[in-house]
């Protein structure tokens, strides 16, 4: 179906090749997963398939990419629209119309399909992706998961033979992600659709993939079955790390396989002593009867809790449950409609300038919002000046967090993880008492996530400060947080230690916990520690 023959790709003003001599044939009805570190060229590979690279981006392409016998050298992306449906990294940026129904029809209108065909297909897609209830809604009012489904529907409606998706679940909560992926799985099996997908969160997709393309970033690419690739790849989901840590000869890619392989370990007598709840030291953040609403919609419904020094608290919940609203109320972005927030005795809404910097460090969903310097060094110097620090202090922090960033790089040219590191070091340079992060792991690969975990743990333990983060990433929470607040529809439904909250709901349980259930182990680290304890 898709054929890459001797494909090499290099972008102008770049010294490294993205792909070098790649040969790959993807058969009809195959689901292929593209993995690799951030910035390694996964998106480029996906966009080569319909010719957006190089027709839209520039760059030199050697070799030939053909889909269903049509070569992208001869045909522009528009000419491939009836064969390929493509869903970009951020679907919200790609919507061309206002309402769900119009968006679904758009692709067919431009292909000049007759009206009766369009009517039938729109209904078909509305049912297939369970969008019927949303058909007249404006796209801007939909949640992230719903928007993702609309984007997939809009790509499918022209009956393409190939569907290409770039990180389709990165902004979704675990349940919405599951939903989207199982729809794709069904399409592959029912309609013989060929799917090519790039994703960082391997634990979500690995079980559906037939083959993996591993891109290294230096032009090299490896193609193989998930087992072959994951055996040695540094990028691997937690269950593969578990298999490695346990010294298993084979690796399983699904929870089911891994449970079969590890039955004996689970049945060992557990000597894991459940950690007592961390000592409640002084309280840092208190909110009482906090209510936030937008227009007529209540985002937070009179909730109260206290966060103590040294805690790393994860705020979890569905898309649109009120996580960001809580974080914003605590950071003092919006004044709550009722209730009180107190941060070290201050009202966070009243904090300004230096006082604010010393108390709250806030990393928004787009870390680049905080950055405006023309280079990394200008950004660091600005932070030094703001906080009256000796020149070079911030840059030193950055070097510790993410080593090897050239000081003259423009922040925009950094990878997602490096940019987060820069924003974090700028914020940390003022030594805030509380660090608040909104969805810090979007677009981060495993390596960057490990860095982030190390940084935050050392921040919380060495300074005894509180960290509060909103995230969908269950695996990150398992590694990092010691307390979880679970929000649904503006109410706190669970508030307790990470172990208690994550184990109580199968949808939010991390992979290792699913494999090791009923043992109370959340991460590879826990399992290894428990086994060592037994010996």
């Amino acid at each position, binding site marked *: 179906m898709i054929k890459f023959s001797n494909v090499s790709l290099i972008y102008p003003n770049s010294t490294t090749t993205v792909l070098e001599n790649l040969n790959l044939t993807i058969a009809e009805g195959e689901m292929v997963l593209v993995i690799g570190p951030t910035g390694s060229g996964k998106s480029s590979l996906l966009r080569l398939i319909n010719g*957006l690279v190089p*027709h*839209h981006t520039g760059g030199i392409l050697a070799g030939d990419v053909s889909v269903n016998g049509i070569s992208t050298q001869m045909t*522009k*992306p*528009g*000419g491939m*629209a*009836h064969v*390929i449906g493509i869903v*970009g990294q*951020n679907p919200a*940026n*790609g*919507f*061309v*119309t*206002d*309402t769900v*129904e*119009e968006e679904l*029809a*758009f*692709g*067919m*209108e*431009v*292909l*000049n*399909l*007759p*009206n009766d065909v*369009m*009517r039938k297909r*729109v209904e078909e897609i509305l049912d297939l992706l369970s969008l019927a209830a949303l058909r*007249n*809604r*404006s796209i*801007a*009012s939909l949640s992230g998961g719903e928007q993702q489904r609309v984007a997939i529907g*809009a*790509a499918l409606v*022209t009956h393409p033979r190939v569907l290409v998706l770039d990180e389709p679940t990165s902004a979704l909560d675990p349940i919405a992600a599951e939903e989207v992926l199982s729809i794709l799985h069904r399409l592959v099996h029912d309609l013989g659709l060929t799917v090519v997908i790039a994703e960082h969160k391997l634990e979500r997709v690995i079980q559906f993939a037939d083959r993996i393309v591993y891109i290294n970033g230096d032009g090299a690419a490896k193609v193989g079955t998930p087992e072959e690739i994951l055996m040695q790849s540094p990028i691997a989901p937690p269950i593969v790390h578990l298999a490695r840590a346990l010294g298993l000869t084979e690796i399983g890619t699904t929870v089911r396989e891994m449970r079969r392989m590890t039955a004996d370990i689970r049945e060992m007598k557990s000597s894991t002593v459940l950690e007592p709840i961390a000592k409640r030291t002084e309280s840092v953040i208190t909110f009482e009867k906090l209510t936030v609403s937008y227009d007529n919609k209540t985002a937070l419904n009179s909730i109260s809790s206290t966060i103590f020094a040294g805690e790393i608290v994860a705020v979890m919940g569905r898309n649109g449950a009120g996580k960001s609203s809580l974080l914003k109320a605590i950071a003092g*972005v919006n004044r709550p409609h009722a209730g009180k927030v107190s941060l070290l005795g201050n009202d966070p809404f009243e904090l*300004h*300038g230096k*006082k604010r*910097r010393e108390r*709250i460090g*806030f990393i*928004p969903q787009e870390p*680049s*919002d*905080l*950055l*405006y310097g*023309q280079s990394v060094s200008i950004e660091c110097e600005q932070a030094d000046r*703001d906080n009256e620090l000796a020149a070079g202090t911030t840059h030193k922090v950055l070097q510790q967090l993410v080593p090897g960033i050239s000081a003259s790089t423009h922040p*925009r040219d950094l990878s997602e993880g490096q940019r987060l590191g820069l924003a974090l070091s700028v*914020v940390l340079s003022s030594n805030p008492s509380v660090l608040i992060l909104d969805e810090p792991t979007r677009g981060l690969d495993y390596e960057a996530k490990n860095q982030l975990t190390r940084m935050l743990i050392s921040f919380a333990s060495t300074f005894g400060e509180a960290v509060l983060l909103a995230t969908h990433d269950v695996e990150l929470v398992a590694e990092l947080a010691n307390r979880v607040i679970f929000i649904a529809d503006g109410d706190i439904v669970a508030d307790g230690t990470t172990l208690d909250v994550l184990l109580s709901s199968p949808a939010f349980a991390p992979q290792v916990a699913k494999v090791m259930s009923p043992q109370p182990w959340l991460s590879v680290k826990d399992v290894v520690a428990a086994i060592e304890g037994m010996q």
Partner: protein
Amino acid sequence: MTKPSLHPFTWWLWAIGLAVAIVRFDSTWFTLSCLGVVMVVVYGLREDAPWAMSFDWTLKIAAWILAVRTFVGIAIGVPIPGTELFRLPIVPLPSWMPGIRIGGTVTWERLSSSLVEGLIICSIIVIFGAAASLTSPHRLLRVLPVYIYEFAVAVVIAASVLPQLVGSVKRIRMAQRLRGQNTRGFTSWKRVAITLLEESLARSLDLAAAMDSRGYGFSKKRSRYRPISWRLKDSLIVISAIGLVVIS
């Protein structure tokens, strides 16, 4: 959401008509009353959509232009005799620039003529800003003929990305306030502008790529899923504007 019932061209045609009428009438009272009508229409009819929120910014920009235009009008140029209001110090200019004067006596006549001229420019900006905030750029794209493909893509990207910028401005200023930065004054805007420019460029490229890969402009013919029809209401609105042009 209520279904938008007007044709996307309606408000644009109305705006063109109004703008022509204002220029031809050249009367302060007519211009002011047009502005009043436009504001009533926008605040009464606009939907809760990102592009609708751009109107407030249009007003701010228009007010800024009026202020600058008026200042330049009274400070530089040919003096008009009349009732003296106050005097500005005269800046000496070299002899090879005769007839031009900076500063000097400011008369009521001079002030009012500058204001009136500025007002007409502003009203035209406001009227087109109103059309942009009343019309969904996406619906506009659907009715533009495919023959002007490149032009249409540019128009739609400009019309859909610019209003989204208003939302981005708020988000970025909030983030920078949280970094403890001063959000007043010129430098703070410079910081916002850089971030904003990058973001809007990325957005535009995304949208163009998405339109391209869905086959927009590839086929010269295009079918209609739910045709947008021209109704009596549309005709009445446009006729009202044409009527003003004819009277003027």
